[in-house]
Each structure stands twice: as C-alpha cells, then as structure tokens.
C-alpha cells in the first residue's frame, strides 16, 4: 500500500487488510487529507440541498456545526475509544486508531453522486432514495469504524462493537441519573407564575 490511492482503494474494497496496514503505517497526513475531503464534499451537497428546500438561513449554522462536531468526534472519539480498548486489553496505539478513523469516513463522499441520482428521480421516489443513500453511507462508515477498531486492537467483532457503544451507554446512564436528580429538584421548587 504505497500511496493514498492504494489506501483508498483498499478501504473501499478490502477494508480489513486496509485498516490493518493503515494502523501499522500511521500515515497521519494522508488520514487528515482523506478526512477533510470526506467532510467538505458532502457539505457541498448539504449546502445545495438546504438551498433547494429554502433553508438558506440555516446553512451557516448547520455547516459550522457539522465541521466542529465532525472534528471533535474524530479527536475525542479516537481518544475515548482508545482508552476503552486499553481497558479491555487491546494492544493497538491511539495514533493508529486516529489514522484509521480518518480513512473510515471516506465512503461519505459517495453521498454526492447518490443524491444527484436521487435528484433525477420522480418526486415520489426522491426522498426515499435520499434516505436510502444516507442510511447506506452511514452503515458503511459504521462498518469501517468497527473494522478499524477490530484491526487496530486485534479484537473480535463483538468486542469492537462494545468499545464503540460504551461511550454512548455511559452518556445515556449519566443523562438518566442527571434527569432523575433534576426531576426531583424541580418538583421541590416553588412555582413562580
């Protein structure tokens, strides 16, 4: 896997081998380029999609939110998942995971041609096609993320999924506890009407 073209091809067609190689070689600069391409290209589609449905006022907010949240998810996701993977006995490196996660976003660029196809379809099929396209891309990226965790830490699929969903489970538990306390506090407060 000499250059970024080979890496991208392998990510699409031989993800298992690709993720293992990327984690070993740790080519961060390539991962950064792929990540930003995978972020900017779908944003282009999003921009025109929002203009089309008359949501121009929301464009800066949504695009700004998408950029910031994607970058935070990449950095913080890699950090948190690496910590959990180490707790579960994984032997990979944080930089390896960070690099593979950058490449795992690559399928998102396919949202653009898929939305163009959807735009050419009759109105009745347009929204269904767009939903199917979005779901397919999300599933593909999800699969690549699981593969990345598996290959970086030499985990089974079940263990890799556990690493991935643990932060979500923790957030849900914390929210449930917080809401329980806030709920009991609110019922104690005097009402000002």
């Amino acid at each position, binding site marked *: 896997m000499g*250059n970024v*073209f080979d890496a991208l*091809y392998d990510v699409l067609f031989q993800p298992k081998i690709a993720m293992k190689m990327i984690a070993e070689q740790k080519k961060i600069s390539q991962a950064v380029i792929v990540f930003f391409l995978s972020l900017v*290209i779908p944003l282009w*589609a999003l921009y*025109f999609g929002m203009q089309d449905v008359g949501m121009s006022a929301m464009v800066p907010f949504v695009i700004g939110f998408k950029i910031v949240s994607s970058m935070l998810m990449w950095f913080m996701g890699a950090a948190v998942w690496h910590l959990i993977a180490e707790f579960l006995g994984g032997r990979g490196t944080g930089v390896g995971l960070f690099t593979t996660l950058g490449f795992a976003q690559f399928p998102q660029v396919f949202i653009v041609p898929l939305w163009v196809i959807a735009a050419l379809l009759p109105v009745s099929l347009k929204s269904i096609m767009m939903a199917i396209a979005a779901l397919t891309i999300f599933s593909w990226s999800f699969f690549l993320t699981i593969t990345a965790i598996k290959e970086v830490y030499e985990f089974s699929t079940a263990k890799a999924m556990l690493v991935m969903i643990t932060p979500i489970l923790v957030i849900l538990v914390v929210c449930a506890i917080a809401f329980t306390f806030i709920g009991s506090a609110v019922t104690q407060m005097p009402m000002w009407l």
Partner: protein
Amino acid sequence: MYKKSVIIVIGIVILLSLIGLAFHGLGAKNKGKVSQSDKIGIIYVDGVIIGGRGQSSVLMEQGGTDQIIKQIHQARDDASVKAVVLRVNSPGGSAAASQEVGEELKKLRAQGKIVVTSMGDVAASGGYWLAACTDKIYANPTTMTGSIGVYMPYANWEELYKKVGIYQEKIKSGPHKDILSPERQMTDAEREIIQVMVDDIYNQFVDVVAQGRKMDKEQVKKLADGRIYTGNQAKQLGLVDELGNMYDAIDGAGQLAGIEGKPTIKEFGKTSPWNMVFGPSEKISTLLEQFLFQKAANQLNLGVPLEAAPEKWQVK
C-alpha cells in the same frame, strides 16, 4: 496502477456530481421566479420605537432603531432589492428615534428604491411618522393610525413624598437643571420651556406629514390634534393611500418598482439559528421582569409607584 485508476474514476464521478448538484441547485433556486435581480425587501417595525441597540447578547442584537436602520442600509446596498415594504405594527415611541428612521427611509427613496408602508394592527404616532416618509401607505380598514401629536408626561409626587417623609436636596448648576423633577411643582417658566419644545417637535412632525403626504400644513394641523383614526377614516382623510393587507402592499410595491410577475421576497432581520440559540429571548426577559417586579413589590412594599421614575420624550 489499477487501484489508482479506480480511485481517479471515482474522483471524476464525484467531481461531475458536485458540478451537477451545483447546477441543479441553482436551477431550483431560479425556478418560478422572475429574476434574482428583482426582489422586494420587507423590514418589520414592531413595538415601541426606541433608539439604540435594543436587547443585546454575546452574538446578537435585536430591537431598537439601530437594527432597523441597519436593515434599511442592507436594503440600500443590495442592488437586487428594487422596493422595500415597511411593515409597521407600532403604537409610536421616541420622537428622535422615529425621526432617525424616517430620515433613513427618505435617503433610501433618494437612492431610487420604492418604499411602501403596510400598517398592521396599529401604526400610530411615531409609527405614522415613519409611514409618512414612504411612497405609498396601505392600511387595513380597522388599523388604528393617526395620533399625530406630541406629549411630555410629568408627574408630581411632592405631596406623597412629604407624607412618606422623603426630602431630596439638590445642588444645581442652573435653575432648570432639575426640570421635570417629580418631587416639586413645575414653575411657570419651566412649563413655558417644555411647551415650546413640545410645539417645536409637533411642528417638525406636521412638516414631515405635510411633505410626505403632499398636503397643506394647515390641513395637516386640522387632522393632527392627537386623535386616532381607523384605516378607513385615514383613507378618506388622505392619511392613507390604499386599503389592503401586507400582500396587497407587496403587490403595490412590485408594480411601483416595475417588477413583472410574482416578486421575490427578501425579509430583513429574519431570525437566524444563531439568534435562536444565542440571541436575547423576549420570553425569558419578560418572565424575568415579571419575576423581579413581583419580588420588588413583595419586598419593598413602599407604596411608591414605580412610574415615579423619569420618563422619556414620547410622540403621541
């Protein structure tokens, strides 16, 4: 080499898709519209007309005539905006703030843009001042308008303060420095000073109406005794041009600007998502005011009306 070719083909497909999407997006934007260069801007004047920046927060400002003037400047600088509809729903406000906005509307007209007023529930006093500065006025038959006049509120709490045991002493640089103070009777000389000022502002108001409505000044003075009129009455008296709602006003503005077909609307000062998240919340501030007022009323319980605080000049 094979892998590189596959990725390059994918890249070309994505690039072509991006270009296609851009053209599709632009096509959809233009669909059913006359032209991107023919727009009618809408500027809203809601509530009491007060100068300044209004409510401000970390990222946003809203309310206050500074925002309205900013929107007028945006409409002036936007070449695609051929006409502006001023949607007025205001009982009036400060004379200076009304005058400031009125002058900006005149400058906007001088730039070649058509400005049409659409009156909502109320467009009285300062609200009518603004309307008088526009090319054409639309009102609903039941709109409350008119109220052309000026008043300066003054309250004398001297007797009450004596009963409560409050005595305020002032060291003044001149005899009229504490004019309109609520803790003493106004002198005849001060009353004369204030009356002259009120008359001066009233004459300026009458001039604006006479000039804007192309009416004789004496004729305006007959109508400008401070009374309010319905939109229907105002139309008969020549204070309003047409009876109709905002959409009639938009159509009228389009005709005056020579826009053919359905005009494209551009709303100025529209609430953005940033405003929704970080902007000042009217509901929250109202609730806070109610809460603080309730607290103050409960804790102080002095019996002194809060209205004893000095009030600003108001147009009525």
